[in-house]
C-alpha cells in the first residue's frame, strides 16, 4: 500500500504552479537566444533521449514559414502522399503526414526554384544534389518507423528538408553533410525554422557519427556503391537503414536493411509505385511491392 501524498493548500499549489511555469518559460527563452545550438559543440537537447510511450507523438513544431503557402502544401500532401492519383502507394503514418504538412519545403529550396517547391518532383539545390520528391521523403520517413524516443542518423543532409521532417518525429536527429556550403545552408535553414533538435555535422558521412551511436534508424542518401561498414556497426540491433537508390531526379527504389540479433542482414526493396513491368496479355497482377 502506497503512503498517502501530503496535501498542499490551494494557494501554495497555485504559487508552485506559477513558479514552475515561469521557470519553464525562462528556460525556453534562454535556449532560443543561444547561438549555434544545433552544432556538435552545444547541443540543445539532452544527451539521453527522453523516454516516451510507444506511439506517442512529439508536440508539433511550428516553423515560422509553415504559415506560408499552406494551401499549396496541403494540396501537395493530399494529391501526392495521402491520396495520390497515380499508382503510388499512399503514406498512412499520421505523424509523418503531419510532419510533411508542417515542414515548409519552400524554405529548403533555392530561391530561384521556390515557385516549384510544392511540385511533385525532386529539384536541384546546387552542388550536384537534389531535394527529394515530397512523396519519397514521406515514404522514407514512414519506412524508418520512428518512435519519438528513437535516434536517427541521416547521411547527406543536402537541403535539410528530410532532416526537418525527421525533426518533427523525434528530437534525436543527427545529420552529416560533407559539402560545406550545403551544410552551412541547411543548418541555417533548420535553425531559422525552429528545428533546434536537429544536430548537424560537416564531415565525411561514411564514418557515421560514432559519438552518438547506436542509432535506431539511419538514412543514407549518398552511397559509395556499398553500405559503409561504420554505419552498419553504428546501427542498433533491430534498427533499420533506408537507402534510396537511383540517379539524380530518379529514386528507383528504397532499400530497407534491418539488423537482426545475430548481426545478419535482411533487406527489402520498396518501390512505392505499382508498376508491373510486363505489357500485353501477361500484365494482370499488381506488383508484389510494399
Amino acid at each position, binding site marked *: 500500500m502506497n503512503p498517502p501524498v501530503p496535501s498542499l493548500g490551494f494557494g501554495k499549489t497555485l504559487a508552485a504552479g506559477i513558479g514552475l511555469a515561469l521557470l519553464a518559460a525562462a528556460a525556453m527563452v534562454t535556449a532560443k537566444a543561444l547561438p549555434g545550438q544545433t552544432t556538435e559543440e552545444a547541443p540543445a537537447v539532452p544527451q539521453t533521449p527522453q523516454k516516451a510511450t510507444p506511439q506517442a507523438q512529439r508536440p508539433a513544431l511550428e516553423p515560422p514559414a509553415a504559415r506560408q503557402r499552406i494551401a499549396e502544401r496541403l494540396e501537395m500532401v493530399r494529391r501526392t502522399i495521402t491520396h495520390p492519383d497515380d499508382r503510388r502507394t499512399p503514406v498512412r503514418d499520421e505523424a509523418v503526414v503531419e510532419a510533411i504538412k508542417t515542414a515548409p519545403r519552400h524554405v529548403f529550396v533555392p530561391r530561384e526554384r521556390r515557385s516549384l517547391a510544392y511540385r511533385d518532383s525532386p529539384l536541384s539545390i546546387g552542388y550536384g544534389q537534389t531535394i527529394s520528391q515530397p512523396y519519397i521523403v514521406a515514404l522514407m520517413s514512414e519506412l524508418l518507423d520512428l518512435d519519438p524516443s528513437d535516434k536517427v542518423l541521416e547521411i547527406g543532409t543536402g537541403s535539410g528538408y528530410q532532416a526537418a521532417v525527421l525533426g518533427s518525429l523525434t528530437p534525436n536527429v543527427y545529420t552529416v553533410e560533407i559539402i560545406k556550403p550545403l551544410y552551412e545552408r541547411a543548418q541555417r535553414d533548420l535553425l531559422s525554422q525552429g528545428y533546434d533538435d536537429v544536430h548537424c555535422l560537416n564531415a565525411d558521412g561514411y564514418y557515421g557519427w560514432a559519438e552518438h551511436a547506436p542509432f535506431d534508424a539511419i538514412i543514407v542518401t549518398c552511397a559509395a*556503391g556499398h553500405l559503409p561498414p561504420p554505419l552498419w556497426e553504428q546501427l542498433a540491433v533491430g534498427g533499420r537503414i533506408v537507402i534510396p537508390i537511383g540517379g539524380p531526379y530518379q529514386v528507383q527504389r528504397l532499400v530497407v536493411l534491418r539488423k537482426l540479433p545475430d548481426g545478419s542482414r535482411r533487406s527489402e526493396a520498396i518501390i512505392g509505385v505499382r508498376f508491373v*513491368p510486363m505489357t500485353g496479355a501477361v500484365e494482370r497482377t499488381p506488383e508484389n511491392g510494399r
Partner: protein
Amino acid sequence: MRATPSAGGLIWLVTLLAASLLGFEVSLMRVLLVAGWHHFAFVVISVALLGFGASGTALYLTRRWVVRHAAIVLTFLSLATAATMPICTGLAQHVPIEMTIAPALLGGLIGRWLLYWALLTVPFFLGAAALGLALMVCGGRVAVVYAGNLLGSAAGALAAPLLMTVVSPAWLPLVMGCGAALAAAGVAAGSPARRSAAIAACAAAVGLFLWLDPPHVRLDAFKRGAQIQRLAAQDAVERVGRVLGPRSVLEAYRGRVLHDIPFLGVGQDPPAISVLLADGHWVGSVLEVQSADEAGIVDGMLMASVYDLAPQGPRVALLGETGGLNIWLAARHAARAIDVVQPDRRLTVLLRGPLRNLGGAVLDLPNVRVWPAEPRHFIEHTHDSFDVIQLVMTESSAAGSGGIGGLAQDYLLTIEGLTACLGRLEAHGLLAVGRAIQSPPRDNLKLLATVVEALRSLGVVDASRHVVILRDYLAVLTLVKPTPFSDAQIQRVRAICRDRQLTPVWFSGIQAQELNQPDALPGPTEGPGDWLNHAAVQLFGPAADRFIDEWAFDIRPPTDTRPFFSDFCRLSSIEAMRAAYGDLWLTRTELAFLFVLAAAVSVTVAAVAMILPLALIRVAQGRRGGWATAAYFGCLGLGYLLLEMTFLAHLTVLIGDSVLAAAVTIGGFLFFSGLGSLVSRFLGRRRAQNVRWIILCLVVGALVETIGLRHWEVAAGLPVAGRLALGLGLIAPLAFAMGFPMPMGLARLAGGMPGLIAWAWGANGFASVLAAPLAMVLAMTWGYHITTAFALAAYLAAGVVFGLLPQASWTTDRS
C-alpha cells in the same frame, strides 16, 4: 580590289577552313563529353550542325549580293568563324543548363537549351557559309575546290585527335579558330594594311574575351568528377594524375573521403583508395596497398563468389579491368595467371606512373600480363583458354541508368561476343558478369537473354543448367559455364549464399523457399520469387520470345549489327510509365533513344522550316530545278554519312580500337573522296549516265564490302598495322567513288544555274545533319544492315534524279 578571290586563294581558304571546321566539330564533341553525357553531346552536335544547312538558305537568299562582294564576305566569314569558335564555346559554358532532366524544370530548361544550341551553331553557320560561297564563285574549278573541302576535312579529322593528346579540351576551340584565321589570310580583301588590321582586330576580340573569361569546361554538377572537384575545393582530395587524349580526359584523385568500391559487402573498412575518372565519370578505384595480403577488403566483393566456385589456381582474364581491384581478388585466390585487357593504354600509364606507389604497382605483379586491346578483339584472337573470364566493364552501375550509356556500342555484350567468351573457357571455366540491380529489371534480364542465345549458338539445349545467378541488395552476379553445373557445385552455391548472405536468383533445382531472401525484391504476386527469378524461368523456357516482347523494356539480345546493350527504350511502354510514375516517367525511361529520335525529328522540322518557304517561293515564281537539286544533293548527303557511320561500326570491330577506327574511317572517307572529286573533273561531267554508272558501282561495292565485313575474323591474325591497312583498303575504292557525284552535280549546276549551288549546299548540309541521328535510330531499332540499306537507297535515288538537274541547255539563268 578583287571582288572575287583567285582560284588559289579559294582553294587555300576552303582547305584550311574545312580542316578547322571539322576539327572544331570533333573538339566540340570532346568538350561536351567532358561537360556532360554522351547522348547529350550527340544531340548538341547534331543540332549545331544545322548551321551547315542554314548557311545554304542564307546564301541563297543573299546570293546576288554575296557573289558581288565575295572577297570581303569571305574574309569576314572566315575571321568571324575563327573568333566565334572560342567565344561561342566559352559563352555556352555560362548558360545554366542541366543535362540531367528534371521534369519540373523542363519548361524553363528548354529556353536555355535553345540558347546553348544557338551559340554552338554560330561557328558552323559562318564557316559553312564561307565554304558554300567559295563553291558559288569558283566557276569551273568547282571540282578542285570541293576536293579541297574534303581533303581539308580529312586533315582536320586526323589533326584533332592528335591535338587532344597535348591540348586541354577547354583550349581546343581556340586552336581550331587559329586555323580558320589562317584560312582568311588567303582571301583577305583590301590592302595588306587593311588585311592585317582585320586579322589583328579579330585576334584582339578573342584575346579580350579569353582574358575576361579564361577557357574552361563546366562539368555537369551531377557527374562524379564535379563532386570530387567540390571536395578538392575543400582540400579533402587531391589530384594525383591527369592524362589528355582523344578517348577521354583521364584523372586520378586520392583522399580519405573517397570510398568508391562497388558491390562491396558489409565487412571491414576499406583502405584508402584513389579514384579514376574518365571525362568525369568513375571508371575504377585503386587500393592503396602494396601486396595481396593488404587487400583483404576485396574478399567482401560480390565478385569474390566466383572464386568459391572456380578451380584452384585459375587462369583469369579480366576484360576491361581498370584500377586493379579484381587483380587483387584473383591474386588472393592464387590465380596462376592474370590477363588484364584494357584498351586505354593511358590507364596503364597512370597506374605505373603517378599511382605507382599508391597501389598502381598491382599491374607489375609477377603473374599479371596487361593487354592493350579491345576486350572483344582480345577474346577473338587469343589462343589461350581461361578458367575465369570476368567482364569487368559491365560492372559500372551508371550504365543503363537514365540513358547515359544508351548510345554506346558494346561488341562484347552481344550474342557473338558472349559466344566468343564462352568459347575461350575451359570446360569447367566460368564467365562472370556483375551488374547493378535496376528497378524494374532491365540490364540483368537483357544479359541473361543474351547468355541464353550465346549458349544456344554453342549447341546447348538446356541453358538453365549452365547458369547460376546470385545477388545481394545492390547487384547481380551472373555465372555461366560451357558445361552444366554439377550437383556438387549447386550445393556449393547454396553454401556460398549462406556464408556470404547472398540471395539466389537462379540455379538448376532452386526451391521456392530459397528465393528472395535475405534481400527481398518485388516480383509477381504468384510465388515468392522476384522479377529476376521470374524472368529466368521464362527465358529458359519455350515462351522466351514472348516474354522478351512483352517486357516493359527492350531486352532483345544485342547482335554485332545492333550492338546497343544499354538501349532499353520501348516506345510502347511510355504510356504505362506515365500512368505509373506521373511527371517522373521521363526519368524512368531510358533516354538515349528518345534523345536521338528527338534530334532526328527536330533536325527534320528545322530543315523543312528553313527550306520549304524558299521552295514555295521558287515554285510561285516559276523557277525550275529546285526540287531536283534539293533531292539530288540531299540524297548524297544522307547516303554519304549513313554509309560512313556504318563503316565506322564495322571497322571498330575489325581494327579492334575505337579511336583508331574513327580516325581511319572519317579521315579515310574524306581523303579518298577528295581524290575522287579531283579526278571527277576529267569525266564528261554533264553526262548523266556517267554519274549513274559510278553510283551503281558504288552501291554494288558497298554491298560486297558490307557483307565481307561481317566475316572480319579472317583478319584475326593480322597485327594492328595490317588491320589498319585492310580498313583503309576497304574504304579507299568506295570513298573514291563517293567523291564523284557531288562535284559532278555542282559542275552541272555551275553550267546551268549557278545560283542553285547555294540551294544544293543547304540541302546537302541538312541531309548530312539528319544522317547522324537517323543512322542511330535505324541501327538501334533494326541494326546497321538497315542503315546500310537506307544509304544505298539514297544513292540510287540520287542516280535517278541526276538527270533532272538544270544544265547548260537551260538558256536563262532563272536561279
